[in-house]
Structures are given as C-alpha cells and as structure tokens.
C-alpha cells in the first residue's frame, strides 16, 4: 500500500518570500503521479501542480514548482513570492497507474502567509 507523509503540520511565511513544503511517499510502483492540492477555508480542493513519475523535469506552474526526487521518494512544493491568498491547507497526494485507484493523501500542512 502507498503512504504519503507530510512532516510539517504548520508553516508560516512572510508575504513575497519563498516557502517549501515537504512530502515523502512510499511505494513499490514505478508508474505513478504526484499532486499538490490546496484547500483554502472555502474547503474546495484545488489542484495546484502535478508530476508524472516518468518525467525527470520538475513541474512548474507560475509561482509553484516542485522538487521531485524519485530515488529518495520526495516531492516538495516551493511557493515563490508568497501571497496572502496562498494561505490554506496543502495536501500532497499520490496516484498509482496500476488499476483504477483513487488518490492517497498526506495529512496536510497548514500554511499561513503573513503580511
């Protein structure tokens, strides 16, 4: 079974600064996807960024980028130029490609952006 670990329950960052959220996972699969979701107080789960395991290049979406280390099973999220609207819970998630299986989530990191 796959597991996803987020070791930082809470983090804070000053507006305009950069912050990195950590995520590690455990799997015996070789083909899978990794995601970061954002959940603001509105509780909607918003897909921030995704990474295909077969791609060596780290994914980037505007101010959001990942550092994907497949051998280390690490998948961190970097938020640059943090904005107040980035304040939210962030969940790391894993999806295997073998069979129609759902997302497996980490416990989340609560990020606060401080003005």
């Amino acid at each position, binding site marked *: 079974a796959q597991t996803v670990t987020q070791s930082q329950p809470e983090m804070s960052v000053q507006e305009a600064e950069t912050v990195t959220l950590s995520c590690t996972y455990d799997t015996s699969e070789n083909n899978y996807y990794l995601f970061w979701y954002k959940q603001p107080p509105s509780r909607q*789960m918003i897909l921030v960024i995704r990474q295909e395991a077969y791609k060596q290049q780290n994914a980037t979406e505007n101010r959001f980028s990942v550092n994907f280390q497949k051998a280390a099973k690490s998948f961190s999220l970097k938020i640059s130029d943090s904005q107040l609207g980035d304040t939210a819970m962030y*969940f790391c998630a894993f*999806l295997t490609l073998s069979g*129609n299986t759902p997302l497996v989530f980490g416990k989340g990191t609560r990020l606060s952006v401080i003005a």
Partner: protein
Amino acid sequence: SAVISQKPSRDICQRGTSLTIQCQVDSQVTMMFWYRQQPGQSLTLIATANQGSEATYESGFVIDKFPISRPNLTFSTLTVSNMSPEDSSIYLCSVGETGYSPLHFGNGTRLTVT
C-alpha cells in the same frame, strides 16, 4: 477539466436522521469517488462508484451506513444514514477516468450533526 456540482454545500442535521448528498458532473466519467474529511484531518476515501455496479467500500465504511447510487455516468449520491455527531465532517465528491487524468473535486458538503 470537469466541472463538479455538489449539493447541499452545508447542512445541520439531527441525530438519527439521514442526509443525501448529490454530485453532478458536466461530462461523462467512469469513476466517481466519495471522500470524508473529519475536522482538522486529511481526506479518507469512503467508496468508489462505477456506473452499473455496486460501489466498492473501503475498510471501515459499510453500505448500510453510506449507501451510494450511481445511476449514470454524470451523477452520484452518497447518503449518510442514522447520523451521529461523529459523522460531522466535510464530504467531497471526486471524479477520475480510467487511465490518468487530473482528479477534481466538488466544493464539498459540510455536515454538522447535533
């Protein structure tokens, strides 16, 4: 990406009653998933619903407590039966496809049981 409408967005219910949550997708999808998010916690999968077959429940969840319908490829319901305060959570619908596609979520239903 799929647009998912989930209703109701929130409800306050009395102990012992049942609530049915609806999930409507603007495109046909093979797989629909129901998650529960207890206060301050991560998401836990309740069950997977395929059209034309019975839902598959995860360990700790049973059909009598969380009956699911999947009458077609764009719609599903989750019922929370005989509710107790421990059922107070956010319930989220998610859609996916065979093979890979980004998995998207409805806005969730915040349920409070008094």
